[in-house]
């Protein structure tokens, strides 16, 4: 590669061949392995989503039957949640950049890091294996609610096993990051000198570590019930399906913050870089990540307001849900305050970061609507919920992921993409996303239930608008991918620091050498975002 001329070859050039990749211990290569696998599953999930939108273009069964539709939305959910969005930012960018940002040469346990990728692959094989083995993919929805998940003939066992293995992979990544942050920071870098992306990963890792085991054991119980007849959730033999819902959401609500926090971390990197200004309220942003992680544990009940719950527990869960909005809005206000009077440079990553704020605002505020008791009774299990979490997940985390990809692309491969095309792709994706999901919010308020292949005639127009939105968004995604692919093949050589960033990854070469630094990295005086030429008034 042309990027490095000095003594050490880049991590891409050190060794060649397939085995030097799939058995690598280098955190950067493992990050890329994750990028390719996670990215592929994202595309599979997108295709499944497009199929669903096509089916919903007209009422009635047009291209797929009801049962197939149930299996498609389940597979879409399982792939997008467990194979794409949970591992996406931590496993790809966390693996690649956490050690570099901390000024070290690897994570604390490189072998465990490789093992977690292999577990991910095994889990993925199980998840997709349901297409071939047994009586087809699960049709339960990604929530696997008992007792239906115990009774259905489809291959729930294998899907659940996949989620269990993927959970283990996620735990090991989190464990690795926590130890790395505690033990491997550069000399002189205290916790409060870390970049905010590291803080976000730190909070995320704790959630991965402390919430995932609960779903692990819960899924094992479903498995035991299906395979051994150990019936803990079947009301026909005294079990309690509501207990299953509690156990499921005790993990799966904190998991929402596994998805959201790293995205906020990326936005906290992009915004100061492109406004060339010290981040406003460093500690507030850092600690609010921990705050979200903590409060996130105590709000799972808001998924179950209509499942049967005592009055006091319902309003306590609702109140706690509102508390999550506080640290979240602290972050948003701090980002805006950072932009204020900064030297803003409208580059592609910043566009994605700003769109993140916009989308997340819609996703977050609609979240408060469904978190409110009275409103939730009306909106529960309608398209409003679908619109809400797609705004958060794709409009939020997905945008931060793509933004991060454009931000770090020159560092990862030492090449620069065509910025004009990237901006065009951004505009199309952004417009497509809003046309795709905003009608869902309206449909939900009108009363259209989720998870059906069919709907009443009065919902026809808005469903068609939404489906057209999906075509626009996919067009944008294709342009974005082709642009990056061309850049990867024959893009112009990128400088080591194309954005004038001052976190440590910009001090090393593009692409970095195998051990990240060939001289001691210098920490910025006065914190990780203290831009020397900025007017910090």
């Amino acid at each position, binding site marked *: 590669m042309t990027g490095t001329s000095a003594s050490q070859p880049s991590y891409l050039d050190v060794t060649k061949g397939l085995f030097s990749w799939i058995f690598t211990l280098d955190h950067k290569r493992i990050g890329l392995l994750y990028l390719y696998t996670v990215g592929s599953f994202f595309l599979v999930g997108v295709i499944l989503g497009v199929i669903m939108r096509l089916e919903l273009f007209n009422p009635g069964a047009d291209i797929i039957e009801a049962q197939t539709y149930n299996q498609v939305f389940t597979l879409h959910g399982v792939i997008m949640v467990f194979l794409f969005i949970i591992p996406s930012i931590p496993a790809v960018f966390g693996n690649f950049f956490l050690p570099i940002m901390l000024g070290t040469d690897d994570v604390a346990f490189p072998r465990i890091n490789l093992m977690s990728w292999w577990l991910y692959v095994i889990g993925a094989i199980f998840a997709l294996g349901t297409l071939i083995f047994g009586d087809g993919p699960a049709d339960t929805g990604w929530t696997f609610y008992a007792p239906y998940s115990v009774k259905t003939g489809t291959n729930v066992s294998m899907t659940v096993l996949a989620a269990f293995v993927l959970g283990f992979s996620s735990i090991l990544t989190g464990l*690795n990051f926590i130890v*790395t942050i505690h033990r491997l*920071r550069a000399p002189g870098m205290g916790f409060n000198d870390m970049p905010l992306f590291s803080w976000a990963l730190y909070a995320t890792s704790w959630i991965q570590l402390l919430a995932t085991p609960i779903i692990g054991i819960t899924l094992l119980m479903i498995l035991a019930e299906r395979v051994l007849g150990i019936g803990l959730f079947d009301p026909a033999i005294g079990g309690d399906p509501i207990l299953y819902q509690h156990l499921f959401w005790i993990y799966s609500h904190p998991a929402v913050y596994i998805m959201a926090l790293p995205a906020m971390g990326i936005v906290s990197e992009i915004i100061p870089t492109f406004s060339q200004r010290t981040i406003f309220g460093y500690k507030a942003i850092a600690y609010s990540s921990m705050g979200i992680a903590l409060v996130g544990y105590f709000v799972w009940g808001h998924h179950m307001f209509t499942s049967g719950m005592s009055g006091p527990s319902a309003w306590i869960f609702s109140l706690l849900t509102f508390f999550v909005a506080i640290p979240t809005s602290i972050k948003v206000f701090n980002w805006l305050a950072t932009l204020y009077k900064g030297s803003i440079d409208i580059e592609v990553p910043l566009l994605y970061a700003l769109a993140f704020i916009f989308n997340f605002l819609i996703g977050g505020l609609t979240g408060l609507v469904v978190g409110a008791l009275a409103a939730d009774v009306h909106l529960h299990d309608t398209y409003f919920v679908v619109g809400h979490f797609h705004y958060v997940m794709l409009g939020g985390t997905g945008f931060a992921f793509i933004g991060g990809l454009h931000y770090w692309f020159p560092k990862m491969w030492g090449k620069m993409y065509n910025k004009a095309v990237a901006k065009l792709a951004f505009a199309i994706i952004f417009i497509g996303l809003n046309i795709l999901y905003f009608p869902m919010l309206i449909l939900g308020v009108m009363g259209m239930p989720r998870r059906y292949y069919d709907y009443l005639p009065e919902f026809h127009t808005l469903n068609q608008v939404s489906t057209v939105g999906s075509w626009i968004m996919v067009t944008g995604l294709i342009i974005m991918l082709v642009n990056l692919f061309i850049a990867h093949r024959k893009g112009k050589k990128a400088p080591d620091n194309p954005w004038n960033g001052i976190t440590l990854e910009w001090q090393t070469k593009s692409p970095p050498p195998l051990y990240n630094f060939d001289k001691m990295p210098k920490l910025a005086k006065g914190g990780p975002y203290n831009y020397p030429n900025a007017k910090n008034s």
Partner: protein
Amino acid sequence: MEHSFSLPNSGHNYDAKASKLGMWLFLYTELLLFGGLFMVYMVYRALNPDAFLIASFNLNVWLGTINTVVLLTSSMTVAMSITAIQKGNSKLSLILLALTVAAAVIFLVIKYFEWGAKIEHGFWPGMDHFTNLPFGEQLYFYLYFFMTGLHGLHVVVGMVFILIVMKKIKNGSQNKNKNQLLENSGLYWHLVDLIWIYLFPLFYLIH
């Protein structure tokens, strides 16, 4: 590989503290794994207090007590083996670890006979006798088999860990100065013990 410059905070250095921290974090996840089951137990016990009481009389308190003693003793021997290796006595450490493994085997054999007797009397889910039990008692036995089964699996895993460490002590890669792997397997073994300390009263003793 050519590696002229090396960071002082390299991830490739041997770092016993990092390894220990990682192990503790892993133990939290194990505790939470069983924590989920303890919660299920709590809920169902609260809903079916009488049935749980009646069902618990089917277990043999003596066998449970013997197993508790066996496991506690093995926890002691593994702790002693760590002290032994830190004082440079690898041979004693190996003997103590062998005793630990022996205790684990005894535990599993006793467990095998306990389970065997239950299954012989038709207490396994799906058997005729079992399906005629009241719901609450069925739940008790679901939990009994699931929780002690999962715990038994952990005993096996802990045993394998200790056997691997024994091999490493023999070839000298775990020694007086570098014994974090042994300490980590010890920690894991204490966890196996700790979980049993909760399982024993929950299933055998509460009357």
